[in-house]
């Protein structure tokens, strides 16, 4: 009887555990989610998850540029964070890859930055997730971050890049212009993504578009604009030399680009790539402000070429040397070469001399709400 009374008095202690808990700690979940997004680059790192074709290629979302630069977010990752290819089973797929845990949390993630021109806060991408509950009953964390935007390279050509500089110009021999004029742009990835530079300041062709603009092409043309050069009206001519004037041709103002090819690690064979057809998911090639050119354009260039190669199109790793070779050849093989550009001066895309423009890091905020 005594025993029964004592046991009966302990029964309420059983029920304490069953009373509904005051709250799941949403703030802690939000903090963890915020930390994963801002400090982790996601998984897999290489090949990067943002280049995966479906959500199955993503094990974990993360927006940081790399593990060595927490708090610096990559615009490439932010923009692919909500791409259609990942939204098949939204929000479950997202929940499994950012928030983790079995409880069906609802979330709201917003990324914003300060726009110095309009002096206002703007969203980088539309917010991800459900609308915030109006009563404020959600866990929240705000992280301050910096954004790393895409870099691009600009090559200014000038007269010193003409072959045979110093006034003696290369003349085309009469039997035809079998000798094409080549010009190579070299990207040495081991320099560009060298570990001696913080990844926040890298131009990484493996994850961001290779955006190269070649300017001032007219400076390399085989003409003499300047009378002191006496270029194309050279006198006397050797037996096998043609001259613009003698052949009654006018000095050229364009040169014909025959093809653009990619070479890896100085391999003499070009990389396999669909050079002859347009593929706007892989590259864009613009000649003199006319777009939709293929990489075997057979077009005349007078001033500017712009090539954008999207990440994932070429097989690159951290020690690749990528050469992009532009070949100029005229249709009429008996004409002198229109451009004197030459591979004596292969152009290196490096950080020196500001060939690669790396935009400044921009302040921003990442906010996570979980409920």
């Amino acid at each position, binding site marked *: 009887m*005594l025993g029964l009374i004592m046991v009966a008095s302990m029964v309420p*202690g059983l029920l304490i*555990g069953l009373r509904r808990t005051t709250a799941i700690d949403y*703030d802690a979940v939000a903090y963890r989610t915020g930390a994963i997004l801002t400090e982790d680059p996601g998984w897999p790192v290489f090949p990067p998850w943002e280049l995966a074709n479906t959500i199955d290629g993503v094990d974990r979302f993360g927006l940081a540029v790399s593990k060595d630069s927490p708090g610096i977010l990559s615009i490439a990752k932010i923009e692919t964070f909500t791409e259609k290819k990942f939204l098949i089973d939204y929000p479950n797929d997202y929940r499994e890859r950012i928030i983790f845990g079995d409880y069906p949390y609802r979330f709201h993630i917003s990324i*914003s930055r300060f726009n110095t021109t309009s002096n206002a806060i703007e969203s980088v991408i539309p917010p991800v997730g459900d609308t915030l509950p109006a009563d404020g009953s959600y866990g929240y964390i705000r992280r*301050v*971050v910096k954004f790393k935007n895409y870099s691009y390279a600009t090559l200014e050509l000038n007269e010193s890049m003409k072959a045979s500089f110093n006034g003696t110009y290369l003349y085309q021999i009469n039997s035809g212009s079998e000798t094409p004029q080549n010009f190579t742009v070299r990207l040495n990835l081991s320099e560009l993504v060298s570990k001696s530079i913080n990844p926040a300041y890298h131009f990484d062709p493996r994850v961001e578009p290779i955006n190269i603009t070649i300017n001032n092409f007219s400076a390399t043309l085989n003409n003499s604009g300047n009378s002191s050069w006496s270029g194309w009206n050279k006198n006397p001519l050797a037996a096998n030399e043609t001259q613009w004037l003698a052949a009654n041709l006018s000095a050229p103002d364009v040169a014909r680009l025959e093809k653009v090819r990619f070479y890896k690690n100085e391999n003499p064979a070009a990389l396999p790539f669909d050079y002859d057809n347009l593929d706007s998911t892989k590259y864009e090639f613009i000649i003199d402000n006319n777009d939709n050119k293929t990489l075997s354009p057979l077009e005349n260039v007078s001033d500017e070429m712009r090539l954008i190669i999207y990440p994932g199109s070429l097989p690159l790793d951290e020690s690749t040397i990528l050469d992009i070779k532009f070949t100029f050849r005229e249709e009429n093989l008996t004409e002198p070469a229109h451009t004197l550009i030459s591979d004596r001066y292969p152009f290196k895309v490096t950080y020196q001399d500001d060939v690669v423009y*790396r935009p400044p890091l921009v302040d921003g905020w990442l906010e996570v709400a979980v409920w």
Partner: protein
Amino acid sequence: MVDRTEAQFYTMEGIAAAVLMVLTAYLVLGGTTIYTPGDTHIIDMQLEQVGNDALKIMDTKINESDTFSELELYVRNMTTSGGSELGTEFKKIIDKSSANPDNIYFEAYIYYVLTNGTIKKYPTDHPFAESTQKFSGNENAVRVTRWVFVDNNAPNVPTDFFAAIHTNKTVLLEVLLWRG
């Protein structure tokens, strides 16, 4: 007269069994867990995270070619414009929205060490940088700190900063943050 002792044994056995049951039941039921509401420290942690993030972001160079980060520039010029510039920039970062500013306020001090080991606070009589609302002592403040590098050519530092040995130094920037 009952000469047998079995009945007494039965009773003792019975009492012992009861005590055993009660003890077991007590041990089993005493193991329930009690849930308590979330600690207030989580609110402090959000504040601390914002403060640490803001200092870290200000200490990140904007371009790789920059010589100093913004925070290092402010501290190099601590006797002139560094304080007010630090205040403006810090407020901009922790507020996020200038139209609808968050109610986070702060106060910053710099601590440096002299060669004889004395720790000096700069400035001595007022905060290095502060928000419009001043610290009254009643608020629950969190403290975030960051070590900032000062090179030996820093132009605007107190007179005793480089006394005796003119080398690069590291100072401690301490910021108190609270919600108003």
